């Protein structure tokens, strides 16, 4: 695992957010992890960014709390985050990965609306973090691979963003590229 201290900090903040029932802070923190991950492309950093962001979003949604299975799910995520912090402190990376995985696997034990909602939060979190990596200059395909999302969903998400408007994206000007396309089709 790379940037261990950063991962530890994110998890500690996530634990605090769960205890205080305040998911707002985690979003910003998870973006900082993506900043690091764009360079290291470390799967542990990426997994933590997705999990932390998702937990932040889940905690924010009051309407999930009365749903069947919420208490059990809340207990599982609290315990897994607590354990994953201990794992990092003990340098037990294998156990850390299992604890992080446990959070995602616990969704499978849910049923009904809560299962659907939480699955969606995790799916959207992966796409959101993928788009952040893409903004950092990593290609769409490489990003999709790192986050386990399809290119189709990433392309649509990125297309709605302002990623194409930044000045660095300018390369060849419009006319010569049009000319190239026309020449391929033998048009003037």
């Amino acid at each position, binding site marked *: 695992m790379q940037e261990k201290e950063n991962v530890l900090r994110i998890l500690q903040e996530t634990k605090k957010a769960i205890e205080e029932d305040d998911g707002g802070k985690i979003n910003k923190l998870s973006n900082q992890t993506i*900043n690091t991950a*764009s*360079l*290291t*492309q470390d799967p542990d950093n990426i997994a933590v960014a997705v999990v932390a962001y998702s937990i932040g979003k889940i905690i924010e949604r009051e309407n999930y709390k009365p749903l069947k299975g919420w208490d059990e799910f809340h207990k599982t995520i609290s315990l897994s985050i607590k354990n994953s912090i201990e794992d990092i402190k003990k340098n037990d990376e294998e156990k850390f990965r299992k604890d992080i995985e446990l959070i995602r696997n616990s969704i499978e034990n849910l049923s009904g609306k809560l299962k659907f909602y939480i699955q969606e939060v995790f799916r959207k979190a992966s796409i959101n973090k993928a788009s952040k990596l*893409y*903004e*950092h*200059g*990593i*290609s*769409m*395909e*490489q990003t999709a*691979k790192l986050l386990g999302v*399809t*290119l*189709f*969903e*990433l*392309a*649509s998400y*990125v*297309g*709605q963003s302002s*990623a*194409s*408007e*930044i000045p*660095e*994206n*300018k*390369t*060849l*000007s*419009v*006319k010569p*590229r*049009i000319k*190239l*396309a*026309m020449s*391929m*089709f*033998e*048009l003037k």
Partner: protein
Amino acid sequence: MKAIIFDSSTLISFAMNGLFEEIKKLKEIFNGKFLITKEVKYEIIDRPINTKRFELEAMRIKKLLEEKILEFPSVFELNEEEISKETLNIMNSANKIFWGRSREIRLIDLGESSCLALSRMLDKKGIKNAIATDERTIRLFLEKPENLTKLLEKKMKIRVTLNQKDYKFFKEFKIIRSTELIYVLYKKGLIELKDKNALDAFLYAMKFKGCAISDEEIEEIKRMEK
């Protein structure tokens, strides 16, 4: 004979807008082949066909392959194994061009690299070709690496260096996007919609499904028509 090599991103822009007939029309007026590599096929057919969300788009692209609108490089007697081998070489080399904090920055993956490998192999055979990619990073990488350096530095907040010596290989690839292909259709009068804003609608539709083109560039394309 000529070839247009389609990267996943360009086919996704067409597919997500349902513009399969437009790909067929382009093929009809093209004196050459529309190619995809097996690495690109994996990204746009094999993988999404197993997801409920994009199964339909994948099936419709698969149909283009069955109808030979899209073809594999074997039509030019190019060996798949050789392309895959060259793909890995190019990918490994490309991912050692940009460096930050004493480590290489991995920017591109197999599909994108396979398009570059195929383009170089077609060059060697004397077959005129262009890569159709809507993807921003690969375009910046090939056309303006200094801008990619700036972008990486700005976003990652680190100093990034470009390995100029090894970069030489990546010069002179030819890139077009789905938006330029739409312009070709428009110029040929092959866009069915006769609305005065049809070109605008098509170009923005491509942009919103992932084509890396700025509003300013779209407006410039439209001005070329006035």
